[in-house]
């Protein structure tokens, strides 16, 4: 009971911190850094939601960008087409903006979750690499269909989405997603997910309905990917099918593999590293407010040209030397980090 109170207080405290930081960061740091910060938050949510499917439940999906696309187009389309109606209600702008954002990203998330259900029910019977290629196929089909939908702009993309995403919502969603996935994986029900990952036949034999759990994980993951997509759409105000190719899906896979497949903190670290690293290489001056020697920025600029090459090399070397990623399956714990003996949850 006490720990529940502490946790709730912590949750509210962190949320409040995000709320307070939100206007400060928007005005206080340069727009380039702010954009990176927002993209990072969106990537964290995506990575955590993919961890639930790939890491914790062990179903290897490489079509996550498809769910993100559905969320982005669902939420963006919702705002674009129904936006004028809400504006006519005459609510104060602060309320209407945030309310509208939440409703539309929930709509986007719902759409992605629905797709997760439709796609998950049949495909999750497949195993391993077959599932991987089927999810890849679905992700691509979603993108091709969107490209052919004229009312959302087709290949030109959807414009005119209100840019209402702020720091608070992005990181609040990260927090929610992280807590949810963590709680989910540490309840008896969540242990069933791990059981499905470890051995499906054994899990079935102790009475776990593996299909149900797999689909449930898939839907939850898809929902958060959709929400992240919605935030993405409402941050940039413009979306294009080209942002959601399987290259994006691969990028997300690299993030969670780098951090450690199955670890939530690993997913966060992976997302942060892989968002910051390319930006840092491209423009180190924006991160370090000191006059940097020219040869250094020049060198980093050279490196940044080959960043995608470096990613792929990193992935191969990582798999060959440390296939379990940075954290393995464990979570980062301060106690263990400081050398004390951590208590297992």
């Amino acid at each position, binding site marked *: 009971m006490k720990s529940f109170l502490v946790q709730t207080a912590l949750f509210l405290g962190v949320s409040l911190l995000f709320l307070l930081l939100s206007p400060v960061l928007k005005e206080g740091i340069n727009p380039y850094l702010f954009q990176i910060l927002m993209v990072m938050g969106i990537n964290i949510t995506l990575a955590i939601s993919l961890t639930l499917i790939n890491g914790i439940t062990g179903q290897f999906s490489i079509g996550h960008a498809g769910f993100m696309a559905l969320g982005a187009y669902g939420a963006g389309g919702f705002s674009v087409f129904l936006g004028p109606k809400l504006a006519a209600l005459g609510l104060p702008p602060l309320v209407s903006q945030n309310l509208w954002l939440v409703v539309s990203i929930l709509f986007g998330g719902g759409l992605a979750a629905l797709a997760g259900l439709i796609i998950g029910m049949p495909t999750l019977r497949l195993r*391993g690499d077959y599932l991987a290629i089927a999810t890849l196929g679905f992700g*691509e089909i979603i993108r091709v269909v969107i490209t052919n939908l004229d009312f959302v702009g087709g290949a030109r993309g959807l414009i005119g989405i209100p840019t209402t995403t702020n720091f608070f919502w992005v990181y609040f969603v990260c927090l929610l997603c992280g807590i949810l996935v963590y709680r989910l994986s540490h309840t008896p029900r969540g242990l069933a997910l791990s059981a499905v990952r470890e051995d499906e036949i054994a899990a079935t034999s102790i009475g776990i309905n593996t299909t149900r759990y797999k689909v449930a994980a898939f839907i939850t993951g898809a929902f958060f990917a959709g929400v992240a997509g919605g935030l993405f759409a409402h941050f940039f105000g413009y979306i294009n099918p080209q942002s959601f190719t399987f290259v994006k899906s691969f990028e997300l896979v690299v993030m969670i593999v780098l951090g450690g*497949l199955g670890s939530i903190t690993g997913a966060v670290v992976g997302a942060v590293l892989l968002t910051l690293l390319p930006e840092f290489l491209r423009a180190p001056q924006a991160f370090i407010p000191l006059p940097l020697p020219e040869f250094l920025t020049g060198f980093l600029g050279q490196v940044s040209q080959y960043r995608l090459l470096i990613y*792929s090399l990193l992935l191969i070397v990582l798999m*060959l030397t440390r296939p379990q990623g940075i954290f393995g399956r464990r979570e980062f714990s301060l106690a263990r980090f400081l050398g004390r003996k951590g208590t297992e949850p």
Partner: protein
Amino acid sequence: MEFLQQILNGLSIGSIYALIALGYTMVYGVLRLINFAHGDVYMIGAMTGFYTATAIMKYQLPLPVFLTTLLAALVVCGLLGALIERVAYRPLRNHPKITLLITAIGVSLFLEYGGQALFGPDPKNFPQIVPDRDMIPASSLSLTLIDTTIFALTLVLLGILFWIVHHTSLGRAMRAVSENPRNAALMGVNVNRIISLTFVMGSVLAGAAGVMVGISRPKIEPLMGILPGIKAFAAAVLGGIGNLPGAVVGGLIIGLLETFISAVNIGGKSLSSYRDAVAFAILILILLVKPTGLFGKSTIEKV
């Protein structure tokens, strides 16, 4: 005539898919791995062909252009296939399948972005090394020398492949390894060598496909292997993965369907932009309805 023409076009692109699909199916047969990098080997084949042909034409070397180009692509791709297997896959052979799959994705991305760094990201024009001559000028059907070359080359390569697999001791060893690597090893088969050679053979076929696409659709670029790679994989699954004739049939079917979809008009709106979704839709349908593919498990013939 229009219909026949579409069939010819479909078979032409289908042959290319078929050759790539064979590589997927062979590697899957011996390693149970979707070799994601296979589509990029095909890209390397096209690039090798491009540089060889350009060099021959520029320095006017006294060499038969087409044959030398083809040979160069085959050799480079074969070596590349063996190298990929040795460096990236062999050390991980006893790890979980997912580790291998992620490594394959890594190798694929490495070849794509390495290709961009090495060759530059812009599309290149493959030099015309096979003249664009119509073989039957009397009819309205257009069967070019290029298409004829593609068909002939495909048949020759298939003939060689099937001869190797069915009539040599190497082929018998390959079939044994795909049946059961451990038992094959007990029977004195050098499993590592066979797996290596399987990669070489699959990659050689992909290299040939790369040159073929170079002569028929001359725009080549470092990311060109991604989509045909996945489509060819779909073709392999369609025919029943691990099954050699299945891969060929699957490739031809996907090529034909794609061509037909592109030609369909509904209410004045062309469906050609849905072309790329066709292979995926078929793939998913097959996986759901008959995961063993067209040539089901009972007749399966693994390499």
